[in-house]
């Protein structure tokens, strides 16, 4: 039953899987993000307090979730690669980092765009904004460390270790910044059972979240193919894959 797991360690197999999955992820992402955008921007009622400005959450919240999810994925892939010496793990981590960093930046930018009409300022030293900013710094650190080494294998392993150390620190950083008085509104969706958000607002948001996941999957598959090809450029199967 573990053969599928072992197969995932083989670059040609992963290359094939990524190539096969990419169009599915992309197609489903277009559908779910499309529904989320149309329903969220067009049909969801305006918030009784925030008016139409709340609609930015349809981009902001999924990208903030994804920024943490992708960091976790990157650290897990790095950890797996370090422990079991599975090189594909490094490729997944290397392919994920720029996506995660971009979504973190997107969350920060949309957050500050939302902050201007709501708080009257583009930037407030609010705990969630600050921990998101620190997350961006962690991403930048991991990416710069990977590229700083002349020997790519060494850079991979150093970046993986840093990602794992960072992942251990993320909750600490989060709770330390929560110490300040928060301007940010409390969680509205994570309260399971009875979310304090109307269904007509919630469904587009969940659809956007699923869409962002699928979009990450699609971009990851695309970037992973590139990473695997680049890393395995000496091997015979790559030459055949490129020829065909």
């Amino acid at each position: 039953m573990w053969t599928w797991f072992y197969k995932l360690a083989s670059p040609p197999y992963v290359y094939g899987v990524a190539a096969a999955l990419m169009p599915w992820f992309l197609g489903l992402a277009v559908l779910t993000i499309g529904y989320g955008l149309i329903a969220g921007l067009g049909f969801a009622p305006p918030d009784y307090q925030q008016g139409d400005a709340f609609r930015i959450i349809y981009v902001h919240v999924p990208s903030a979730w994804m920024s943490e999810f992708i960091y976790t994925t990157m650290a897990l892939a790095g950890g797996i690669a370090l422990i079991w010496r599975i090189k594909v793990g490094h490729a997944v981590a290397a392919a994920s980092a720029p996506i995660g960093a971009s979504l973190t930046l997107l969350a920060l930018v949309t957050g500050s765009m939302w902050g201007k009409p709501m708080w009257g300022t583009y930037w407030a030293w609010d705990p969630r904004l600050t921990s998101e900013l620190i997350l961006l710094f962690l991403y930048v650190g991991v990416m710069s460390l990977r590229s700083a080494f002349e020997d790519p294998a060494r850079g991979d392993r150093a970046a993986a270790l840093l990602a794992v150390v960072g992942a251990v620190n993320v909750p600490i950083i989060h709770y330390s910044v929560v110490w300040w008085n928060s301007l940010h509104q409390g969680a509205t969706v994570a309260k399971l059972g009875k979310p304090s958000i109307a269904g007509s607002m919630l469904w587009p948001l969940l659809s956007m979240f699923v869409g962002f996941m699928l979009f990450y999957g699609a971009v990851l598959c695309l970037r992973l193919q590139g990473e695997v090809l680049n890393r395995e450029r000496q091997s015979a199967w790559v030459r055949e894959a490129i020829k065909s």
Partner: protein
Amino acid sequence: MTVGAWEAFWLIVRREMRLSFRRPEQLLQPLVFFLIVTTLFPLGLSLQLSLLRDIAPGVLWVAALLSALLSLDFLFKSDADDGTLEQLALSGHGLTVIVAAKTLAHWLVTGLALVLVSPIVGTALGIPVDAFATMLVSLALGTLTLSWLGAIGAGLTIGLRRGNVLLSLIVLPLAMPLLIFGAGATDRAVSGTNAAGALYLLAALCVFTCTLAPFAAAAALRITLE
């Protein structure tokens, strides 16, 4: 000749301390840097002691973090350059023990020195004498934690040509909780409220890094040394 891990630990600590005291300029530079940075703030902001007192804990802590970060550069560097580190790694003692000893010795000569100098800076910035105890304890815990975090960063950036900037880029985000709790504790002590909560959290972070960071730093060295 065989020595136990514990004995090796203290031998390395003593060797590091002796080497540091033979190169006093290396010890003094971070301290002078600490003094200069804290001088910059009054010059750049205002000479009013009342305003200075409000920002003093933050200034003190930012300067201490930067100065401790500066000294991290020579935690492994000279030993890595002349091959001593490889010899130590091959000595048969766990790399974790070696890293822990080197980091502890490094903190004793840099972090602790910084803590001892901080009352001078604190006085200049208008921190009341009543708050000195909290300031000293928080700085001691904070610099020790930073040394452990820095050991990971320094281990990862050994042998990189422009490792210094990268080291700051890696370590500073991880050190932000230290700044929050450390400056928070000092700030509370300055304003006369109870700083125990922040100090406990700092102590918790310190214990946490003391127990886990040596393993991470040893893993980092294993990656960069091999």
